[in-house]
């Protein structure tokens, strides 16, 4: 009996467990998942908690609900991967051997890597919204905050869900408008990028949206430290931005076990081929989702699109065939813009987000790179899709590779 071992059961790991259990012959292969958390968070929901749309209970389900029958699940922490001996060691000392390893250990915020960020103001005036604790603390803070300088800072890329900080700015504008105190809140978006976003057309579109919503943009700002005493952030070029409330999207890094096992780059992201998803160092190790050092978005949609590629490539690997699939960097995401509207973007390694309709021309129903109420509803509906279709690897009516159908070139 051969073993396929999956490390991590977030979006990517859970989808792969579902796919591979169905794909591989049960009399030849067993599928095992190691994940320390017993609950699965709907991570896009973190963004909505500070503004009171969701509470913790609305975005949480037991992980076990999402694994198919036959998959063995081990709820414990991983101590080390030993790739030259094809096994891993768990925190309790138990060893598990594998024939094929899928690493889906994700990414996490490392606020401790920026001096002063996790200082005395952490979770008092400085918050993150990438963890459940951060989001909940911020929800409490906003309830009684009298207003002032609200600063949203992205430390540096890569970050999970690169549009989330912008969505936060838009939703904050909407939230304080509804509370009748928008005039008391000065919102500033501070980014290491040269504009609102990374890709030119989307950056222009989102930049003008910031302007229209009266949100200040500070670009090319790379945070060097947080001055807790004077409540300001400083960049290496000597610029300063004062805050009364700082929303930080801290630096991200991979799971510590990756570096410990010698599989990662300097940030603990697994070195792997951006097209085949195979580890750069060991042929029987594959990587999916946020854990990899691919130059693609760290987002659930990417993990979802990668999963179809990885499923086929692993079968190719088992059969000693050349890889048949190549991941194109496909990503798409809804961007909440407040006031009941949203934007949808769809892109890959080579093609930037373009205007048009998705997934079909003429009928859409979703409009690309343009605000619409339907896009907002799409985002709300997505939570149901995530729990009921996506995690269980059921088919969605969208193409795996990015398609130019419905997109308009300028």
């Amino acid at each position, binding site marked *: 009996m051969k073993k396929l071992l999956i490390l991590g059961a977030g979006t990517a790991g859970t989808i792969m467990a579902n796919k591979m259990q169905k794909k591989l012959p049960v009399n030849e292969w067993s599928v095992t998942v190691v994940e320390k958390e017993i609950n699965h968070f709907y991570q896009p929901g973190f963004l909505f908690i500070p503004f009171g749309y969701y509470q913790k209970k609305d975005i949480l389900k037991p992980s076990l609900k999402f694994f198919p029958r036959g998959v063995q699940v081990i709820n414990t922490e991983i101590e080390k991967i030993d790739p030259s001996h094809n096994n891993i060691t768990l925190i309790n000392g138990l060893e598990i051997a594998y024939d094929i390893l899928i690493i889906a250990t994700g990414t996490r915020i490392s606020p401790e890597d920026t001096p002063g960020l996790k200082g005395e103001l952490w979770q008092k005036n400085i918050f993150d919204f990438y963890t459940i604790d951060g989001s909940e603390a911020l929800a409490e803070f906003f309830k009684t905050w009298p207003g002032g300088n609200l600063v949203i800072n992205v*430390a540096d*890329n*890569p*970050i999970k869900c*690169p549009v989330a900080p912008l969505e936060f700015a838009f939703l904050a504008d909407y939230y304080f408008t509804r509370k009748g105190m928008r005039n008391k809140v000065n919102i500033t978006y501070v980014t290491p990028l040269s504009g609102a*976003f990374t890709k030119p057309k989307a950056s222009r579109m989102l930049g003008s949206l910031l302007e229209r919503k009266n949100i200040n943009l500070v670009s090319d700002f790379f945070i060097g430290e947080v001055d807790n005493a004077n409540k300001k952030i400083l960049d290496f070029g000597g610029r300063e931005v004062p805050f009364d409330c700082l929303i930080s999207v801290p630096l991200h890094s991979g799971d510590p076990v990756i570096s410990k096992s010698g599989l990662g780059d300097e940030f603990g992201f697994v070195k792997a081929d951006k097209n085949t998803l195979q580890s750069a160092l060991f042929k029987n190790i594959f990587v999916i989702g946020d854990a990899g050092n691919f*130059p693609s978005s760290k987002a659930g949609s990417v993990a979802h699109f990668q999963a179809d590629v990885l499923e086929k490539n692993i079968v190719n690997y088992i059969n000693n065939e050349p890889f048949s699939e190549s991941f194109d960097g496909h990503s798409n995401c809804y961007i909440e813009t407040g006031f009941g509207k949203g934007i949808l973007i769809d892109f890959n390694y080579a093609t930037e987000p373009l205007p048009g309709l998705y997934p079909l021309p003429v009928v859409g129903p979703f409009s690309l790179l343009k605000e619409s109420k339907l896009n907002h509803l799409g985002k709300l509906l997505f939570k149901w899709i995530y729990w009921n279709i996506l995690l269980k690897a059921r088919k969605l009516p969208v193409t795996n590779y990015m398609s130019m159908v419905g997109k308009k070139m300028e």
Partner: protein
Amino acid sequence: MAQKTYAGVTVDVNEEGYFTNPSQWTKEIAVEIAKEEGIILTGQHFAIMEFLRNRFNGGEALSIRSINHSGVIDVKTFYQLFSGAPLKKATKIAGIPKPASCV
């Protein structure tokens, strides 16, 4: 596709002046692009540009944060060498595409 001539060599660039074919780059060309940006290149500049080019050629994402792990200089020095928007300037002078970061 636009073209520019540096040090007597014609190279392909995009509308922002970034190389579209990094193999056309030479150190002599870099010196001329740097002049346009008001920078006089030193050994430190070249060392960090080599790091950026190697990383780019290896298919890895470029970020300001990665400079701290370059083993050449830290981020603070990077800002002093290419003041203002260092990663944008350094990649332009190093003849590689403007980093799209991670989206």
